[in-house]
C-alpha cells in the first residue's frame, strides 16, 4: 500500500478527512499534532515590555495508508482540500510506499480487511 502524509493547518484537518472520504471512499486516518516552521511568519508575543515572535505555528500531520490504486487520487484530494486561501502556511503533502500493512485486530493485511469491510 501507499502511505500518504500531509502537514495541514489544524482548521483543515476535518475538511481534508471528509474530502478524502467523499472523493475516494477511504476511511481510516491517524492525526498527530505538530508545529511547523517555514515561510510563514509566527505569532508576536509581548510580556512585560519584551516583544518576541514564536517561530513555530500549530499544524497537524495526517497519515493515510491507502491502496496503491487510489493513492494519487487521495493525494490530489488532500492537496485540494488543504488549501485555505490564506497567504501562507497551508503545508505540504507527500507519499511513500508502505510494505506489509497489517491490521492488528484481525492480524490480516489491511487491504484484505478493507475489502472484507
Amino acid at each position: 500500500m501507499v502511505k500518504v502524509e500531509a502537514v495541514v493547518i489544524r482548521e483543515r484537518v476535518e475538511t481534508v478527512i471528509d474530502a478524502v472520504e467523499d472523493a475516494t471512499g477511504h476511511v481510516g486516518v491517524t492525526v498527530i499534532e505538530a508545529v511547523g516552521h517555514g515561510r510563514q511568519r509566527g505569532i508576536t508575543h509581548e510580556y512585560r515590555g519584551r516583544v518576541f515572535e514564536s517561530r513555530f505555528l500549530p499544524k497537524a500531520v495526517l497519515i493515510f495508508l491507502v491502496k496503491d490504486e487510489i493513492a494519487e487520487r487521495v493525494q490530489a484530494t488532500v492537496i485540494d482540500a488543504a488549501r485555505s486561501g490564506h497567504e501562507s502556511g497551508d503545508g505540504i503533502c507527500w507519499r511513500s510506499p508502505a510494505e506489509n500493512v497489517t491490521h492488528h485486530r484481525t492480524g490480516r493485511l489491511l487491504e484484505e480487511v478493507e475489502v472484507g469491510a
Partner: protein
Amino acid sequence: MPESSDLLIAASTIWVVVAAVLVMFMQAGFAFLEAGLTRMKNAGHIAGKNVLIFAICSLVYWAVGFGFAFGGGNGFVGTAGFFPSVEELVSVGQKPFDWFSEVPGAAGYLFEVVFAGVSLAIVWGSMAERAKLWVYFAFGVCFTLCYSVTSHWIWSPHGWLFKKGMQDFAGSTVVHYQGALAALAGALLLGPRIGKFGHDGRANPIPGHNIPYAVLGTLILWFGWFGFNPGSTLGVDLGGFGYFAYVALTTNVAAAAGALGGIVTAWVVLKKPDLSMMLNGVIAALVAITAASGYVAPWAAIVVGLVAGFIAVVGVIAVERIGIDDPIGAVAVHGASGVWGTLACGLFTVPMLADRLATGHGGLVYTGSFHQLGVQLLGVAVVGAWTFSASFGLLWTMKKLWGIRVHEEAETLGLDVSEHGMWGYPEFYIPVPGGYDAWVTAPWERELRPQRPAPRPGSPATAPAPESA
C-alpha cells in the same frame, strides 16, 4: 465605659464591613465561574477583567455613584455626597448619608460599591470572549452610573419605588436583573462567538475549559452571598437583633434547593446531570432569594430555590434556542431568575416579616391580595425598560462609532494574546525557557543556545562515514 450607642455603632460597623468584604470577594467568584465556563485561550483576559472593572467601579462609585444612589435628593436621583470628604465618610448618620444610621458613611460606601461591582461583573458574562478591552472602561463607567440611579429608586428612602413599598431585600432586581439586562443588550449587539451557531442556526456546544474553576467560583459566590443578603440589614438590629442570621438561613436553604433543582432538571430534561447546570442552579437560586431572603419562610425559600434551579436550566437552553450566545448564562441565571425572585416576594412574603422590616405588605399566599405582586411587577417593568434601553443605547452608539467587537483573527487567536500580548497559560502554547514540553532555548533568544561540541572524529561533519552507508 463606652456608651451602648457607641457599641451599637461598633457592632453594626463590624457586621456591615465584614459583609461588604465577603461581597467584594465575589469578584473572585465571578472571575473563576466565567473563566471556567469559557475557553483556555481567553482565560487570563476573562479572569483579569474582573479586577479591571471592579477598579473602575470603585472609583466611579466613590466619585459620583454613591451620591446618586444615597445622597439624599429627590425620587429619581441623589443630589449630594459627590467626591465625599473625610468628614462625610467618618461621621455616622449625618447628611448626606444619613440613611446609614448605625454605621459611618464609609461603611455605607464600602457595602454599596461591592454591590455595584457585582452588577457590573454580571454584564460581561454574556459579552465574554469577543468584546474589545476599551469597552470595559467606557461601558463600565456608564453602567455604574445607570446602576446608581436605579438603586436610588428602590433602596434610597427618597426613591419613588421605595416609597411604593417595593420589596427587593438585597437586590434581585437592583443588582442581578439590571446586570442581566445590560448583558442581554451586549450579547445582542456583539452577536454570537465564531463557531457558536451553524449555518442552519443550530447551536454548537462550546464547553468551558475548567469545571473545577467554575465550582470554585460558585462556592466563592455562595460564600460571598452570606454577606450579600444578611449584610443588607445595614446594621445589627434591622428586623430585630440578630435577625440577619435568619436571612442567612433562607439564603442557604434556597441555594441548596437551587443546586438540586438544577441538577435534577438537567438529569430529567437533558438526560444528563450536567455539572455546569447544577452550578447555574445554585447561582440562580441565590439570585432569586436575594430579593426575598428577608421576607419569606424557610419552606418558601426552598420553593424559590427549586424553581430558580429549573429556570436556570430551561432558561439557558431557551436563550440559546433564540439565537443569543450567552457564554455564562447570565441572562437566564441573573435575569429570568432575578425577576422570579422579585415577584416571589409578592407571592410568599410573610406579613409579620414585612412589618418587621417595615417594607411593603404580605404576599398573595398569606393575604390573598395582589397588591404587593403588583408593586413588584411595576418595579420589574420600569427597571427593565430603563436599564435595557439605556444599556442598549449606549452600546449601540459605541458600536456604531468605534465598534465593540474584536476582529475575527483576534477572536480566533484568543483575547489573551491578541489584547494582552500573552497567553493565559503560556507553556501550553509557546516554548518558554525551561517551560513545559518546551525547548529550553526560547525562539527569541539566540545567544542562549548551547555551543555545539566540536565534531568528534568520524562524525559526518568531517568524515563521509554515513555516506558510505
